[in-house]
């Protein structure tokens, strides 16, 4: 009924072809020669590590980014890039990891948002609700089109988004980590939905890290590594081990500035830490001079553990002991008093005050160093900023320049400076080198190593395997909120870590 001039496809038709696609963001290369072919009536998995380029590919198809080089064709025609509206017109729909529905509106309205069916001048709600119900049925799901979207689980919201895509006659449905927030039964249901789409001769491209699911549902697998396509195979003609090797199979040519440090007493001890919604029964120790890495997929609960230790989030049961003293939960002030520091995951929203100056950011935790009796001493603040600028080689023009003018790397260094200035005994760094250029990355690694050398105990959360293997003395792997494996530096390999992170099995 709502026709957008998109051809209905026959099974096997070549719907999408990408050849040699390149994309850079400033100095960083996201894609350097990716290929992809998608046919009607198939479920196609896109695999690769963090930063391999999967998201960028999806976003180019969704019309959010424009590729610099390469050929992209939809059916016979050239793909019109750079406009989400055009992507929709060409039959491409995207389901993001976090669906953004209009929570106050009904499901039927969400499906038909902006395109409500009309009877004369009035909106025909009866028709919309019927159609929505029909779409839900087609997808094999029971949802009431009249109900409000608020209160719907992520899984159900996804189904609504898929129904919306269908109602717009999408032929290619992109899904970015669709099962990341789903329970086992919801994953089952989503797979049923995907199969329905396949029978209707649509193509589903999905990005996922859950390799067991990938092998259960997909027909084809394309593996990306460092921005290029490494392999494209039928799922039945490949296997888990091979795919893992293709994902990570690089030589570790980057030297990590890791020195052996004398390891001292236990500084932090976590025992049975549980917050039922995010993680259960987490127990580990970190010693002075030691770097312990917390590895795992996005959503495995690592950052939540870190926040719970630091006190920004709460936990239900378990204990945290710092230097053998029980740490009060839920109080960052207490944690800071006990010399704990947390460099958070999202430096823009959590680590920095973007509109404030470099000096104000660096001094935020160090007021006692700056105070006279009552008032802040601006001279001391300037001096403090200078010291850390030199120590960490932070590049900026004026101290009072808003931090959002700095590059990502320098911003991250500012956050590090802020916390190192408190001289912590226990330092947590969450994705310390995410989104940073290569040069600054190794500077940051040097700094972390130096901190360990000074006797600090360090917990490093990272999704980048080379970093984890290069820096850590011990690696703890989390999956779905549970602690599943621990490896020493010697015994750890990329394959073992990924396998533990995706399937929960130790190598």
């Amino acid at each position, binding site marked *: 009924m709502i026709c957008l001039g998109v051809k209905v496809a026959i099974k096997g038709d070549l719907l999408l072809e990408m050849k040699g696609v390149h994309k850079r963001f400033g100095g960083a290369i996201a894609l350097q020669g990716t290929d992809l072919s998608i046919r009607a009536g198939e479920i196609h998995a896109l695999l690769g590590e963090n930063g391999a380029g999967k998201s960028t590919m999806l976003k180019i198809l969704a019309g959010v980014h424009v590729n610099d080089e390469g050929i992209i064709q939809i059916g016979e025609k050239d793909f019109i890039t750079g406009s989400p509206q055009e992507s929709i017109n060409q039959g491409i729909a995207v389901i993001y990891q976090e669906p*953004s529905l*209009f929570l106050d509106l009904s499901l039927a309205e969400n499906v038909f948002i902006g395109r409500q069916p009309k009877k004369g001048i009035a909106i025909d709600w009866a028709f919309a609700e019927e159609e929505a119900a029909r779409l839900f049925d087609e997808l094999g799901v029971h949802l*009431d089109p009249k109900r409000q979207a*608020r209160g719907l689980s992520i899984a159900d919201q996804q189904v609504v988004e898929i129904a919306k895509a269908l109602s717009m006659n999408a032929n290619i449905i992109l899904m970015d980590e669709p099962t990341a927030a789903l329970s086992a039964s919801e994953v089952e249901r989503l797979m049923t939905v995907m199969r329905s789409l396949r029978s209707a001769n649509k193509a589903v491209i999905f990005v996922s890290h859950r390799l067991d699911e990938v092998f259960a549902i997909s027909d084809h697998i394309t593996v990306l590594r460092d921005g290029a396509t490494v392999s494209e195979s039928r799922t039945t003609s490949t296997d888990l081990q091979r795919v893992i090797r293709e994902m990570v199979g690089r030589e570790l040519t980057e030297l990590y500035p890791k020195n052996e440090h004398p390891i001292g007493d236990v500084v932090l001890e976590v025992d049975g830490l549980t917050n039922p919604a995010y993680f259960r029964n987490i127990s580990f120790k970190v010693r002075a001079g030691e770097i312990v890495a917390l590895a795992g997929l996005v959503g495995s609960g690592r950052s939540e553990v870190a926040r719970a230790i630091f006190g920004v989030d709460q936990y239900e049961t378990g204990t945290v002991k710092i230097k053998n003293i029980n740490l009060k939960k839920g109080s960052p002030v207490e944690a800071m008093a006990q010399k704990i520091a947390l460099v958070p995951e999202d430096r823009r929203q959590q680590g920095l005050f973007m509109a404030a100056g470099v000096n104000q950011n660096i001094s935020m935790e160090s007021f006692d160093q700056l105070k006279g009796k009552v008032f802040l001493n601006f001279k001391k603040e300037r001096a403090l900023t200078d010291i850390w600028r030199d120590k960490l080689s932070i590049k900026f023009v004026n101290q009072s320049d808003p931090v959002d003018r700095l590059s990502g790397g320098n911003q991250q260094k500012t956050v590090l400076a802020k916390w190192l200035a408190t001289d912590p005994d226990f330092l947590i760094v969450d994705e310390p080198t995410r989104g940073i250029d290569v040069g600054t990355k190794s500077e940051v690694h040097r700094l972390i190593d130096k901190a360990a050398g000074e006797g600090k105990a360090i917990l490093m959360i990272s999704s980048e395997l080379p970093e984890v293997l290069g820096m850590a003395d011990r690696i703890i792997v989390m999956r779905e909120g549970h602690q599943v494996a621990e490896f020493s530096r010697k015994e750890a390999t990329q394959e073992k870590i990924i396998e533990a992170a995706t399937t929960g099995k130790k190598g």
Partner: protein
Amino acid sequence: MATIFKSRQISRETSLGIILIFSVGLTGFINPRFLTGDGTRDLLTSTATVALLAIGIAPIIIMRHIDLSIASTVGLSAWVIADFCAKNPGFTWVQCFIIGGVIGIMVGALNGLLVAGLRLPSLVVTLGTLYIVRGGVYVVSNSVDYNAQEMPPSLLNLGQKVFFSVLPFPFLLVIIATIVTAWCMKYTKPGRDCYAIGSNPHAADLVGLKVFRRTFLAFVFSGFMSGIGGVFYLMRFAQVDSTAFYGQELAVVAACVIGGVTILGGSGTVTGALIGALLVQTIQGGLAALGVDAFWKSAINGFLLIVAIFADRRLAARSERALLAQRIRERE
């Protein structure tokens, strides 16, 4: 689980309606005159202007904006109409409505351009126009008052007209306005877009909704209703000076919020706003009948508003908790 599935909107209006009936009954019990034709007529007359404005401002609040200039616009409109009438004795009520509407639209358009066009915060913008209009009234009126002699008789008669001996003409207009606006909010795209924009402004942009157009229209509508409110004022009081309708903006917002149009945006109905206005008026009538000093009137308004917001928050918290419980189950 059933509570999650119940649409929040349905339960709010229905429960409000029940509370209203209950309040009317209670007030009538305390003061039997309240339930008579006279009493009803008085209630509806005193509610009419606030109700009209509440209907006008509801779409704006649904879109997560606010319009503080409404009361000043009423005053401006009332005075300008009176001025025209005094200088043109041949005017009928038709011209009055037209002038009122035009003035209201002009103020609304100014607000709309600034908020929708320049994306300025509506609180600040309408605070500014509140001042400009209020000052404008003082300056333009130069302390000249008008009273019943200068008003067109047709207008005053209309103001006195009562249907079925309980329904005053202004309130009839209010009912018509409610029906029409409610219909538009439910069955037209501009109306539905208001809800979408208020519910998730970011997604609304992404999906390609015409945010500028809808926001502008909402402010023009609110202005228009305020302009007509000026006509209502004249019909009721038959006189006007430069302080007409001073300070009532917050009473209107309160009526809306109590009526279920949550300040967070995205939900609430025009019908709810109407019921909210009636409810506030009824409760005050009831308290007056109980011998509670009229001076506590405003305290009660404030209290009701806080209770209403509190109820909103509890409902929102409930669905958050349900989602969290689901998460916990998933992680097992």
